[in-house]
């Protein structure tokens, strides 16, 4: 294959194509079967690695653990021990008082408190063409999502998912909208296929499905999914929230 095609392919996968280069690559792929085949093959490779974890390449077990989460230092200076002992006793006393006098929050309250937003990462850009290539109802649904109108977004995305059953990205945002609008039972149904797939959104889906299961009171399901999220090297962003819900279960 000529160097020009290789250069364009590299730019494509590093998201650096200009509009003119995109048009050039499109033409090359349409007229040269070798280029088309190479593009298709590398796209398949790209799809295959979406679920791969960089951390899996670390051979040293201890290093792999260190890469997953920061372990606090356990070294405590001897001279600090009495202070820590007093602090621990005071904390314990406070906990006892809190347990006796303060009603613990319900599980649903904990879930709602630990439900965090997921940023909209959908890209709807056409290739320099003037007409929108994405249906208006989809754009509208994601606009509602962006404005945190989750109940409305969930309603809109439900029909979109029904019409595009293979689109895991639509399903993911539908599930997140349902969790954010506290429609937990529906969220469980929406997100379950995602965690069984190899979609790139599988890891955050574990977190949201865990929340949804906790919301409906299915503690086994919640534990399983939240634990899987925490144990994943990519499960970083919502780790504290996932742990908080796990503790409440």
């Amino acid at each position, binding site marked *: 294959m000529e160097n020009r095609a*290789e250069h364009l392919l*590299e730019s*494509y*996968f*590093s*998201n*650096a*194509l*200009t*509009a003119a280069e*995109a048009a050039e*690559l499109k033409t090359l792929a349409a007229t040269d079967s070798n280029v088309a085949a190479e*593009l298709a*093959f*590398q*796209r*398949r*490779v*790209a*799809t*295959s*690695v*979406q*679920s*791969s*974890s*960089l*951390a*899996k*390449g*670390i*051979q040293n077990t*201890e*290093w792999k*653990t*260190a*890469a997953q989460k*920061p*372990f606090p*230092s356990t*070294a405590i200076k001897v001279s600090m021990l009495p202070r820590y002992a007093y602090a621990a006793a005071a904390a314990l006393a406070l906990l006892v008082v809190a347990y006796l006098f303060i009603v613990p929050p319900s599980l649903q309250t904990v879930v709602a408190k630990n439900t965090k937003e997921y*940023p909209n990462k*959908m*890209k*709807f*850009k056409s*290739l*320099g063409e003037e007409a929108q*290539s994405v249906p208006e109802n*989809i754009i509208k649904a994601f606009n509602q999502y962006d404005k945190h109108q989750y109940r409305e977004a969930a309603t809109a995305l439900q029909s979109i998912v029904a019409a*595009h059953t*293979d*689109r895991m*990205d639509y399903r993911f945002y539908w599930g997140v909208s349902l969790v954010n609008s506290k429609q937990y039972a529906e969220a469980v149904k929406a997100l379950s296929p995602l965690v069984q797939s*190899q979609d*790139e959104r599988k890891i955050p889906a574990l977190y949201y499905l865990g929340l949804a299961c906790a919301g409906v009171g299915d503690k086994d399901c919640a534990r399983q999914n939240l634990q899987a999220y925490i144990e994943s*090297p*990519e499960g*970083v*962003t919502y780790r504290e929230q996932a742990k908080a819900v796990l503790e409440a279960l």
Partner: protein
Amino acid sequence: MNGKQNELDDFRKNPNSVSAGLYAKCRPKFIGWGKENTRTSAHDLADIFQNAVIIMMLNLESGRLTELVGTLCTYLFGIGKNLIQAFRRKQGRIGLPGDEAFPITKETDLGAEAQIIAQQADEQLWAKVDTLGEPCRSLLVLTYREGLNSQEIADALGYASPEVVRQLRKRCLDKLRK
């Protein structure tokens, strides 16, 4: 032996402690710098920092990283900046027909049976990628998932030039074609 070399030795002896220190001290600096200079969200910067730490460990394990020019935090900043560049390009990418950004139409829809066959082939390819081993695995993840170009991968993984990266990637892809 100087202080910078000690940081690598410290890591080898006590990776959890050094890693905890990096997350406690270096990550906030990286996130603060990133938010101010690149307008990337803290959420995404945290993910990027995590990847930078992993890449550092991969480089150390493979022997590509043997000494530091600055501190370990500076080293992570260097990797992180390349990852941020690639991430921001991903945000503004121009795609091609067939991309995820383009919804499936009647013309591009493969049909259910063909989709199942394609999915099975992809799963086999995914299994092959997983068994490739290092450095192919990391190279392909950085190329196709993180979207780094060859220069950025050379900088991040410590290769001499982008051409070395291209040649290595070609060999890795050829292994997958078999």
